[in-house]
Structure formats: structure tokens, C-alpha cells
């Protein structure tokens, strides 16, 4: 059996903000067509890792590759080409307030010059895929509930049929039932597209639902990486403390006065 090239690969990535080291030699591979979930406490570098892959931050050192090609130091046109493979669901959905919902969903299509009527129909189909009716497309993002915003964000993420989808805390701020709905939508959308998914979350129920594999980040490094169904039985005391939500253990939360 031959070893397949990872779709996303991070090697020895370092990133610091002034004296604060956030990523300290992070290594992570995500295989094509698989769903990887990175878990970890608040402020351990999950979002920074994601932003380094997306090109929103530049690592101090290390490599970030997509499809075996380094995505660091790309010119804006090259970066745009890479981003066309990518869909992203932001934590707060990051919908554009100045545009109606359907234009948010069809944003990339409209930017690429797709006819507005055609783009609107595609947006309506994508909204239906995440369980939203056609009339939602004419609403403003300000008129939507948190769960609906997440669904619209998901519809926007999948609108360009991306090869890779990133999910940043997809269930944060949602009630348990809506979290379940979003998790199921993520699983179905990723499977339908055959996409590679990388999610970051600290919601263990969500992680186990949407991930094939789970990795845990702590002190800027991946300290555990394995199949999602094995995380509960992990004998790593950091993982064990985190998934059980215990305050006592090796993970000490920084308390601010």
C-alpha cells in the first residue's frame, strides 16, 4: 500500500506575538477526503494555526502545504487560486451585513462574474442544502438567529464546491439541538462534496460527531493525534483531563486578575 500525500500539511510551524509563543513547532497532516478536528483550550493556538493555513497570518518559521505545494509567501494572485479550493465557516459566521443572505452565499460566484440570476439560483440550492427556505435569501444577515447565521455561513462555505473546508468553532454559542443540527449538516455537506475538512473546536460532542480523526493542541504543539473513536480511551493525561473537563490536572488555566 502506498502512502498518500496529505491534502494539508503543517511542519514545525512556529508563531509568536512579541514574547508570547503561540505555535511552537506544530506538525499536522490531514489526509485527502478525511475530517480532522483539532481540539484544545482557549488561547492555545487553534485559531492562529487556522489563520496560518488560510494565509491570514504568516508563520515565523516552518512550512504549510496544500496539495504538496507551499502556500507561504505566495503572491496575491497565487493565493487567490489556492483560496478557490477552500471554504471557511467562521466562528461568528462573518456574514457581510451590507449584502442580503443570497448575495452572501453567492459572493464568490458573483465575484467570478457568474450571472446574477444564475448565482441566485445556486445560492437558493445551497440554502436548501442547509435547510433554509428560498425566502431567507432576501433577508439581511441582521435578521437571522445565531443558528441561521451559522447555516448561511455553511452554505457560503460550500457554495464554490471547495476541496477543503475549514470550520472555526462551528457550534459555539448554539443550543445543544442546534449544535446537533449544525454537526449533521457539516458531516453531510463534507461527505456530499468529498471534501477534506479541518475543524477547530473545544466542544467534544461536536468533535466526535464531525471528525474522523482528532488532534489535541497544547502549548503550541500537537500532543495527541488519533482516530476520533479512540480519544475517549486515550491514556494521555492532558487529553483525558480536557475531554472530561476536569479542573485538576496537568493543564493549568491562566487566570487573569
Amino acid at each position, binding site marked *: 500500500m502506498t502512502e498518500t500525500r496529505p491534502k494539508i500539511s503543517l511542519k514545525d510551524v512556529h508563531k509568536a506575538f512579541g514574547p508570547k509563543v503561540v505555535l511552537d513547532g506544530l506538525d499536522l497532516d490531514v489526509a485527502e477526503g478525511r475530517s480532522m478536528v483539532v481540539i484544545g483550550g482557549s488561547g492555545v493556538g487553534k485559531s492562529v494555526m487556522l489563520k496560518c493555513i488560510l494565509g491570514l497570518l504568516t508563520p515565523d518559521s516552518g512550512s504549510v502545504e496544500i496539495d504538496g505545494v507551499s502556500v507561504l509567501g505566495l503572491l496575491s494572485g497565487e493565493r487567490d487560486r489556492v483560496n*478557490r479550493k477552500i471554504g471557511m465557516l467562521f466562528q461568528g459566521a*462573518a456574514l457581510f*451585513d451590507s449584502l442580503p443572505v443570497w448575495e452572501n452565499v453567492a459572493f464568490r460566484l458573483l465575484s467570478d462574474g457568474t450571472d446574477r440570476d444564475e448565482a441566485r439560483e445556486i445560492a437558493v440550492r445551497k440554502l436548501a442544502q442547509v435547510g433554509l427556505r428560498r425566502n431567507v435569501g432576501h433577508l439581511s444577515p441582521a435578521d437571522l438567529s445565531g443558528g441561521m447565521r451559522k447555516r448561511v455561513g455553511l452554505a457560503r462555505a460550500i457554495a464554490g464546491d471547495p476541496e477543503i473546508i475549514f470550520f472555526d468553532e462551528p457550534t459555539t454559542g448554539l443550543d445543544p439541538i442546534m449544535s446537533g443540527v449544525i454537526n449533521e449538516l457539516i458531516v453531510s455537506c463534507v461527505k456530499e462534496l468529498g471534501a477534506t475538512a479541518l475543524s477547530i473546536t473545544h466542544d467534544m460532542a461536536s468533535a466526535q460527531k464531525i471528525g474522523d480523526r482528532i488532534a489535541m493542541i497544547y502549548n503550541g504543539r500537537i500532543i495527541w493525534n488519533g482516530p476520533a473513536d479512540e480519544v475517549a480511551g486515550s491514556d494521555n493525561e492532558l487529553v483525558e483531563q480536557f475531554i472530561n473537563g476536569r479542573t485538576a490536572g496537568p493543564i493549568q488555566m491562566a487566570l487573569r486578575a
Partner: protein
Amino acid sequence: MNFLQPIGRVFIGFLGSIGRLTVFTGIALSHVVRPPWYPRIILRQMIEIGYFSLPVVGLTAVFTGMVLALQSFTGFARFNAEGAVANVVVLSITRELGPVLAGLMVSGRIGASMAAEIGTMRVTEQVDALTTLSTNPFKYLVVPRFIAGVTMLPVLVLIADIIGVMGGYLIGVFELGFNAANYLQNTWDFLTAFDVISGLVKAAVFGFIITLMGCYHGYHSRGGAQGVGQATTNAVVSASILILCFDYILTAIFFAADG
């Protein structure tokens, strides 16, 4: 020597801000001349800056023209030069007060709104979302505002010039008893194309300053609602001060050219 430390820190911070602003301006201007452009957004910004600023700029202009007529009449009456009222009104409005007052009013209305909108987009990750959607935030957010500001401010000022002169005319004719035809003749006789054009050039520069400050402070806002509020304040204050500074610089240049 410890008292020098805070002074040095402020000075270095100031130099850093100048550097960041210069880089921001350079990047934005480089995108102005490179496609793609977004005509729908440029048009929307033109309407926002030009059309929706008309009431506030028009009201400012009409009252300024009226006050100018009254004040200049009071002054000139002391040495029997009341006939110069029409000339003073039209020259003051076109060369100075039209562009400066319109600039300051638009700075308060548009500069603040740009900083708040882009700042909110920044802190709610909408700017990051643009990047992930293969859309350059400079092209989408900054360039349309630059183009709209630089083109619409001169249009607004031209309208303000007309309304301001009309304000002076109303007071001159109906309050101070000038002959209507003579007032208009005096206005027209002393007005040169240079007076109007110099005011419009000032307006274009002020439009650039207002949009630059609004976009720059909004783009670099941090820290949620408080950061956005701070960005809004900084945008209006810095644009207003720069408008007054550049008004002097441009006036000195025009003064030399005219002389």
C-alpha cells in the same frame, strides 16, 4: 532622564503610525490602478458620499453664505465699501469656505461611517472572510471609497458653491437692500475660473483625506466595540486636522500660482 522615555515612546509611536499610514496608502493606491474594480460598490459609495451628504452640505453652505453677507456688510459699511459684499461672498465661498466646510461636514458624516463599518467588519472577521473568498479587502473596501470620495467631494463643493452664493444673494437682496441684478453682476464679474477650480482641487484632496482616514482607522481597529468607537473618533479627528493643514498648504500653493 526618565522623563524623556515617555516623550521618546510617543515620538516613536508617531513615526510608526506615519509608516503604517504610508504603507496603507501605497497599497491602496496600487490597487486603484489595477483591476478588478467593483463598479456596483463604487456607485453605491458615490451615492452614499455624494447624494446623501447633499442636505448637510447644502444647509451648511446656505447659512455660511447668509452669515458672510451680513458680516461683510457690517465690516464694509464702516468704510463705505458695501458694494464689495457680493465679491467677498463669492470668493470666500468658492476658494475657502465651500471646500473646507463641506470637507469637515463630510468628514463627520462619511469618515465616521466608513471607520465604523470597516472597523466592525474587521472585528467580526468579515475582512478575513473576504480574503478567504479570494477577494482582496483593499479592492473591495478601500478602493471604491477612495474613488467615490475623490470624485464626489468636488461635485458636492460645486453645489455648495452655488448654494452658498445663493444664500448671500438672498440676504443681500432681501435683507440688505441690494439690487438683485447688480448683486449677480458683481458676483459674476469678480469670479474667475481659477477661484472655482482651486476650490474643487482642494475638495478632491479633502475627499482623499477623509476616505483615507476612515478606511485606515477602520481597517486597523482592534478590540471589539470599544476599538471600533476609538477608530471612528480617530478617523474624524485626524481627517479634520489634516483638512485644515492641507487647506493651508494648498492655499499657499494656489496663492503663489495666482500671484
